[in-house]
């Protein structure tokens, strides 16, 4: 594996092997000293051309827990505002001695281009509405920790599917791992064409309350998600996970959300804080899966020692 750009097309064995590796980093993060020397002397550069709190901090934490050094970049304070091209920015950071790049960009495909230009291992930290592969890994790990396996699980993904790279990545990962995925959204928030997607659809959240996992997505105002809705109260009435609806779900089921949450819109506050909400484990697992991917891309193993 030279890059980690997408989960689409990743075979089940590869996904499972990354999740197994992540389990070992969950163990490392639980140690009194949650740090290992595996990537000492390596430098990971964070190129976030789009705002991010949790993904960026999670990658930084992951890199540092592996003893790698990190360099950061944010578009507002960089030479991008002086008109430097994406390519020149990437090559400049390579010349400074970065060993791997974590790239988030509003444009689909930007991480692929940067991988071509630099020849460095690139980790996709989210590109447009396209892919967010480490999110899919951390969600799959969280579900696996809870249920033991994704095989045969019913997973409903509810909300703004059209603008969601999280949905695209999770659909691929969950279905490869054997879960059945149902998308629930107003027609205006579904992709125009679902042909070839390994999913079912439902028109209201009430139809999927028997799922093992309800995965809620944020209405993405910055990608135009709110403008295609008649009103937020109407959205809540058909798609919001209210306390009343949560009470009708099985006591073995769980609720997930990639964050940041709009409490009171897609998820009721008391549902978000319930023990069957896996939002906090999701965030904690994010560090472990990013350690796994960084180690897979930058680490190595020798024979006779």
């Amino acid at each position, binding site marked *: 594996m030279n890059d980690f750009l997408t989960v689409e097309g990743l075979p089940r064995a590869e996904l499972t092997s990354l999740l*197994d590796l992540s389990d070992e980093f969950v163990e*490392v993060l639980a140690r009194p000293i949650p740090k290992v*020397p595996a*990537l000492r002397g390596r430098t990971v550069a964070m190129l976030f051309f789009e705002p991010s709190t949790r993904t960026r901090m999670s990658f930084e934490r992951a890199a540092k827990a592996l003893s790698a050094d990190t360099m950061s970049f944010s578009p507002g304070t960089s030479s991008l505002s002086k008109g430097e091209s994406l390519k020149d920015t990437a090559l400049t950071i390579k010349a400074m001695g970065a060993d791997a790049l974590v790239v988030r960009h509003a444009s689909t495909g930007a991480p692929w281009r940067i991988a071509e230009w630099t020849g460095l291992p690139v980790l996709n930290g989210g590109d447009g509405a396209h892919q967010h592969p480490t999110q899919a890994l951390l969600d799959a790990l969280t579900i696996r920790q809870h249920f033991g396996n994704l095989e045969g699980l019913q997973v409903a993904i509810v909300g703004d599917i059209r603008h969601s790279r999280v949905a695209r990545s999770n659909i691929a990962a969950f279905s490869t791992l054997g879960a059945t995925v149902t998308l629930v959204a107003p027609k205006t928030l579904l992709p125009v064409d679902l042909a070839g997607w390994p999913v079912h659809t439902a028109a209201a959240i009430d139809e999927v309350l028997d799922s093992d996992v309800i995965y809620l997505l944020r209405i993405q105002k910055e990608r135009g998600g709110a403008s295609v809705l008649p009103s937020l109260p109407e959205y809540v009435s058909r798609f919001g996970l209210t306390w009343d609806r949560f009470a009708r779900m099985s006591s073995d089921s769980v609720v997930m959300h990639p964050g940041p949450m709009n409490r009171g819109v897609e998820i009721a506050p008391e549902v978000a804080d319930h023990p069957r909400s896996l939002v906090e484990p999701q965030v904690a697992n994010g560090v472990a899966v990013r350690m796994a991917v960084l180690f897979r891309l930058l*680490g190595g193993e020798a024979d006779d020692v």
Partner: protein
Amino acid sequence: MFLGDPVPSVMGSEDIGRAIRRMAHEIVERNEGADDLILVGIHTRGVPLARRLAQVIGEIEATTVPVGTLDIGLYRDDISQRPTTALAQTRIPVDISGRAVVLVDDVLFTGRTIRAALDALIDMGRPRVVQLAALVDRGHRQLPIRADFVGKNLPTSATERVWVHLTEIDGADGVAIEEGP
């Protein structure tokens, strides 16, 4: 490449059994019992060896000796020279602080694995003492490390390979030397 192949076998199943029983007695003698003992097997073949030693020590002392497992993949000094594989499980069932830890490995060679294992252990706590048990010591150390308990000292040339096979992993017990290239 083993039992049945034309390589000299240097230990058979009974030899390994006897060596383990002797090492178990030595561990008990050195530690004046097994009260605060934990055996930590280094993946891959250190793990079944640690379990066998713990079994025998448990019989000698009429107690249960905890066994941990350790993968030193995150502590190697030669990372990036080879493609990665998965990490095996690291599980230490008790707090090692204040305890006597016996690291267990199949073959002691350069000492680099043990160096990595020591670093890993020290990140997990502060053992009272760390000792090393190896089924085979084949020499050629590259670091100032020695074993406290050795099943068999096996003079080798640096280019030879030493194969340890254990029933739990390989289906049969045996130790053999393969000629170098």
